[in-house]
């Protein structure tokens, strides 16, 4: 038993729904009690899909438990096949149905349906959403993929994107265009938009592009082993990664692969002098393993940030993220405990967070700007506009995404210069965001100054003296956390018990860059 406040991933059957919902001609018969239909709203409301997920829930109730839930399953299954006429069905159990052990797979098999029935074994009490999607897609591919000749020209499949994926719709379009530029056409994109017939045709491609390792790696590995299709290991998010990916495609295909970089604006945007203020901004990165790894490289090598912490919520990616963290000289945080992530961010006090929907809330609470770079996300992160992450346009989009939450460079200078200006101050937030609601005038409560603020730093107690504390308040919020932290570290290293105004400025000089 583990107490959970928020979860980054749903149960594995939600992963199966992500696969079913993004496909066409496939139906999912899910043995589940009333209430599990809540998952439909993830797709219809959060992703704004205009059709119901192709899922039939058997909807058993307490009074059915003593009698015949197996018949209920068979009736629901037959009704679904008759009504929706799918090319194939997947069948499985949600967490409660797993406990009553009706064996949906066995039941469906005895029904003599004339379409492929793909059984799913998704252990609800040990695995999670990404596993569910990966395993479901793998089982579908394993059942349906048919041995066949390769296409005459060089083709590939794009594997992994699902419903509720981060920018999946636009990544597919951008990647398809990029591959076309390289002389590679796309045979099938799967599971996003694919029919069971398309899945059968996967082996016609020469190789696979694994766009989303979280949800497509098991299928990619199986296709490599069984149908001899190599798959790409680099996810082309960021300028460097996109160039590496192109080189990887060149190696696999033997094509010259000369990409058209005329639309790639990100490197100049990053080099141009206005971006100087980005230098060394301390960022904390958390999300799914794939996006975190890509963003660590972008942050350090393409934005000039300092990466102060990275982590992922999906344990399946723990190993690569740990290795990456060593490379960056930071600790990896592998957890799906939201409160642990919050504590880590609070302790590191970064100047910016790159994270998920959850980290946006953490950032809001701690007053740290946050850019969302990974699922899970809410409705505002399924944009109407074209907004890919992969390829050259993806790099442009990411540059904009990362600077938008920050105070602009020149504004940063002015805020520092006019610290005490009653109108032009940091509490207004970045000027391009629109103003916060005007606050009611604060009652002038006299602060208790008799007791200077004490900080515990691993055994030692540091005391901020009043004038230093006051000076700290004048530092704009977006650097205040760093200043406080640097000063405290400096004081601890020097063995000081008190922080005076002088200590504050000595620390500032010490950390100057």
């Amino acid at each position: 038993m583990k107490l959970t406040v928020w979860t980054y991933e749903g149960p594995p059957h939600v992963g199966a729904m992500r696969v079913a919902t993004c496909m066409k001609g496939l139906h999912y018969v899910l043995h589940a009690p009333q209430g599990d239909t809540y998952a439909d709203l993830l797709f219809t409301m959060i992703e704004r899909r205009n059709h119901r997920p192709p899922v039939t829930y058997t909807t058993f109730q307490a009074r059915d438990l003593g009698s015949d839930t197996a018949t209920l399953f068979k009736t629901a299954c037959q009704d679904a096949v008759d009504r929706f006429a799918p090319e194939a069905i997947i069948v499985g159990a949600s967490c409660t149905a797993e406990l009553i052990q009706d064996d949906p797979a066995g039941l469906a098999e005895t029904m003599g349906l004339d379409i492929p029935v793909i059984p799913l074994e998704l252990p609800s009490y040990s695995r999670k959403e990404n596993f569910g999607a990966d395993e479901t897609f793998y089982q579908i591919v394993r059942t349906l993929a048919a041995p066949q000749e390769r296409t005459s020209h060089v083709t590939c499949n794009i594997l992994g994107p699902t419903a509720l994926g981060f920018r999946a719709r636009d990544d597919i379009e951008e990647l398809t265009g990029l591959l076309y530029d390289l002389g590679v056409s796309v045979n099938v994109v799967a599971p996003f938009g694919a029919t069971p017939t398309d899945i059968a045709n996967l082996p016609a491609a020469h190789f696979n592009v694994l766009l989303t390792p979280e949800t497509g790696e098991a299928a990619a590995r199986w296709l490599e082993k069984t149908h001899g299709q190599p798959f790409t290991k680099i996810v082309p998010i960021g300028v460097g990664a996109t160039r590496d990916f192109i080189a990887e495609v060149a190696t696999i295909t033997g094509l010259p692969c000369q990409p058209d970089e005329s639309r790639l604006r990100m490197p100049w945007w990053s080099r141009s002098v206005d971006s100087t203020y980005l230098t060394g901004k301390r960022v904390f990165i958390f999300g799914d393993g794939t996006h975190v790894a890509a963003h660590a490289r972008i942050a350090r090598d393409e934005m000039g940030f300092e990466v102060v912490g990275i982590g992922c919520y999906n344990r399946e990616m723990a190993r690569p993220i740990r290795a990456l963290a060593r490379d960056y000289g930071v600790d990896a945080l592998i957890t799906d405990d939201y409160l642990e992530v919050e504590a880590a961010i609070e302790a590191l006090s970064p100047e910016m967070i790159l994270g998920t929907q959850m980290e946006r809330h953490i950032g809001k609470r701690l007053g740290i700007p946050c850019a969302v770079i990974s699922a899970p996300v809410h409705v505002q992160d399924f944009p109407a506009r074209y907004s890919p992450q992969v390829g050259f346009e993806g790099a442009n989009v990411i540059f904009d995404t990362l600077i938008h939450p920050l105070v602009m460079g020149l504004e940063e200078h002015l805020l520092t210069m006019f610290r005490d200006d009653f109108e032009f101050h940091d509490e207004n937030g970045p000027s391009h965001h629109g103003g916060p609601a005007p606050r009611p005038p604060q009652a002038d409560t006299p602060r208790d100054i008799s007791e200077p603020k004490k900080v515990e730093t691993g055994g030692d107690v540091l005391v901020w003296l009043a004038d230093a504390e006051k000076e700290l308040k004048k530092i704009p919020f977006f650097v205040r956390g760093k200043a406080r932290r640097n000063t405290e570290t400096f004081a601890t290293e020097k063995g000081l018990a008190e922080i005076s105004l002088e200590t504050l400025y000595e620390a500032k000089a010490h950390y100057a860059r």
Partner: protein
Amino acid sequence: MNDLTPPIGGGCRTAPVLKQRGQREVFCGLTGIIWLHRKMQDAFFLVVGSRTCAHLLQSAAGVMIFAEPRFGTAILEETDLAGMADAHTELDREVARLLSRRPDIRQLFLVGSCPSEVIKIDLARAAERLSQVHAPHVRVLNYSGSGIETTFTQGEDACLASMVPVLKDTTARELLLVGALPDVVEDQMLALLGEMGIDNIRLLPARRIDDTTAVGPNTVFALTQPFLGDTHAELERRGARHIAAPFPFGDEGTTAWLQAIATEFGVSDDVFDRVTAAPRARARKAIAQAAEVLRGKSVFFFPDSQLEIPLARFLTRECGMTAIEVGSPYIHDALHGPDLDLLPAGPQISEGQDVDLQLDRARAARPDLTVCGLGLANPLEAEGLTTKWAIELVFTPVHFYEQAGDLAGLFSRPVRRKSLLRMEAAE
């Protein structure tokens, strides 16, 4: 002045009810935690369940994430199921940890889920044991919000019903008002009754555990929500008497509800009219504005919160709409009867759901407005129907006079929006 005459063609109380069994597109009772934890400010709701339960809560509450809400899920893991760990020991540990981190918590609800019910974790026993451990600071109760037993708002019913047996005894003649309302609405309700001279009032749920809600043979109670069937039964078991009335939605519903209480407490007509005249006039004016776009239009209710019957009464009688079908997850005659009496005969009344068959009926009827859950709204909009997602009706202050215009507005806004948007080429 209080025209509550039944419709000329008769009401719907004796109309045949269509009962179908199939897939239900509804939330389970855990969802009630989302508003209950805000209402009871010293309560924590601990769901004993699966990752699905935790995911449901945050998805349904997705629009209102708090840094640290007063609810959480003790997620069952394989070791719990395989009997390798004693579920009760594990639960005791998690509760101890939780309460030590949150000393502000005075009442803890252990909430049963589908998995905990199926593997028969005895939460009543756990609540009793934990109550002894953490008394007197914390009271521990239990109820089930599982989908195999409860539909959406029934979770609140189960929660309140679990509190009735531990309410203090009283022999005083008191009015108990039952149902979680937004504080602003609750204050309006208390003010209206207070002006009529009724002030021996208790609330269930109270905002804090220290409040002195009690019950006994001289208690009369009124429900503010139409989904409190079990709580109703528990209160009668304690000897309290129910004041049956239409529910306080709209001008007419609010007046009828207040009138039933006023009659019980012998409030004169003069006093009643003096207190209600001004807010009634305001309500009528506000409803009239929103009803302009609703008049003459048809409405189809999918079952969701058990608010459907009172709301259909409001929309047909006060906003000039025609009901085609009024679906409710459950119909209790003792609760819904007075509203059914007033709802003009004609619509199909249905209880329970086979969602695919009901969608067929809605598509065939092409209603001007379809009230349905979040899973159905966008798909139906894409088919050209206009929808109102039902969950807003439980997340928005809609009771009593001052909210009557807002309530009508919730239904008129999608209709107005559809007529406002113009994206075709000009010619």
